[in-house]
């Protein structure tokens, strides 16, 4: 069902600035797809908020979010038992890699869709390298199941308080030299640019999950566009239907 009221089963803070929200429901979703979540029932805030599917198992769907503004702050105040109105799953998710190996690069809250992707890839028998970066140890969230999914899991923090010190992208060139796996990235725009550059240099395909302010989430308003590389009159692509996952060569990051 594309619009539904679901019951919140659990909501808790799992790291500095990261909440995990699980609601009861059955959905068939591809990794990389998102939900349009209504944070309230009055006219303010007016719009739904796009949030990636972080996990989707039998009878339960999980979101992972950073309270970034009015809407997500209101969402963080929800309690178990509250009802959550959701539209989705929406959008185009991550394609499976052509080869055996996938390199997943998550910056901050970018781990949200990539965890679910890792689960699905593992189910498909792929080998996973997972790079996760965060500001510091407090804001680093590694889902408990993740270590079992990734053959190689590495953390980076800006301040070195957990894992390697530095940027999550720094190890990527060496890894790609070694394994030539397909790259999947979600995180802040500067990170995505860097990942795309490294993948291009290494000659491997790269899939990025983009964010944009959205109104409809279904392709009707044309509000969520990103500049496309293709040369026809259609200079812009809609993140909500042509994305949120794009090949890094399709869009101008």
């Amino acid at each position, binding site marked *: 069902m*594309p*619009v539904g009221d679901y019951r919140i089963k659990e909501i808790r803070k799992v790291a500095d600035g990261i909440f995990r929200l699980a609601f009861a429901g059955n959905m068939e979703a591809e990794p990389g797809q998102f939900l349009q979540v209504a944070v309230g029932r009055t*006219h303010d*805030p007016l719009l739904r908020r796009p949030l990636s599917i972080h996990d989707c198992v039998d009878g339960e769907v999980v979101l992972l979010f950073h309270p970034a503004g009015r809407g997500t702050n209101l969402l963080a105040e929800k309690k178990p038992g509250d009802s959550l109105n959701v539209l989705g799953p929406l959008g185009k998710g991550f394609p499976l890699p052509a080869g055996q190996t996938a390199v997943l690069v998550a910056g901050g809250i970018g781990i949200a869709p990539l965890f679910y992707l890792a689960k699905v890839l593992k189910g498909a028998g792929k080998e996973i390298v997972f790079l996760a970066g965060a500001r510091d140890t407090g804001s680093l969230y590694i889902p408990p199941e993740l270590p079992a999914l990734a053959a190689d899991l590495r953390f980076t923090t800006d301040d070195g308080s957990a894992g390697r010190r530095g940027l999550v992208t720094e190890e990527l060139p060496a890894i790609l030299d070694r394994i030539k796996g397909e790259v999947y990235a979600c995180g802040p725009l500067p990170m995505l640019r860097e990942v795309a550059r490294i993948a291009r240099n290494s000659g491997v395909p790269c899939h990025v999950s983009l964010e944009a302010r959205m109104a*409809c989430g279904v392709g009707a308003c*044309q509000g*969520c566009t990103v500049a496309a590389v293709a040369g026809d*009159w*259609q200079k*812009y692509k809609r993140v909500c239907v042509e994305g949120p996952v794009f090949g890094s060569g399709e869009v101008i990051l």
Partner: protein
Amino acid sequence: MNAVDLSVQIGRLKLKNPVMPASGCFGYGEEYAPYYDLSRLGAIVVKGTTADPCPGNPPVRLAETPAGLLNAIGLQNPGAVAAAAKINKLGALGIPVIVNVAGHSTEDYCRAVRILETESTASAYELNVSCPNVASGGMAFGTRPETTAALVKKVRALTDRTLIVKLSPNVTDIVAIARAAAEAGADALSLINTLLGMAIDIKTRRPVLANLTGGLSGPAVKPVALRMVWQVTSAVEVPVIGLGGISNADDAVEFMLAGATAVAIGTANFRNPYACPEVIDGIAGYLRHNGFASVTEIVGLAKKERPGGEHGAGKTDYCP
């Protein structure tokens, strides 16, 4: 459950119910087709279409405001030829298809209409006259009665299809412009388009929208839209399609009581993909509950039932 008659007439169009999506908020219908049977709609109004393809504005194109939405899409559309193909497909729904037409100059509008006349099976045109960057000295067609009338006359001469003119609310005297459009041959008027607004990001200290300003829509603008519908329907004879902030059947009924013959729903679709069919059902429920046999009975009723019977645009605030 007694049946109620929801049908209304807009120009030559017979609508089986008075509810349609607003232009630019429903694409060419494709996106909402998975949610319900679009043939339930009274009519369908498609995205603003220009003679040539138009890439639209760079992002950021949207900003949420209190109970409102600012947009600066910039008329992204594939141009009249490609749009015609999409429009013709909608013909299968068996409901009137209204094409919102936009342009830079009189010639632009006329060219778009000429293409649509030959290439499309559209039932009606909705002239979007609130575009400010036009040939006539930078003033929008829709902000002066003379320019509005001149454009409407030109387009009127090109088509026998129903011609609706969509008015801009960013004007001192909406009634003067409505009169000009009606006298120049419009079969109906749509109001309102968006209010010109702006948002600034206090972190980056820059306007949120790449276009700087954008159009404000959604519940926030409803009181302004309703006032304009009241004023215009008090002054002109042609039917008015009311819109601006309608999100449920109660809002739609308010517009019809104020004088609108039909209503359009824009921003509300984004929150609730079922907004249109829910409004149709809700209007029917209101009519049944209050003993009306036909929706036309409530059109303008807030004027008629008012004691004193002064039907004008009303006195205004801040006066002793």
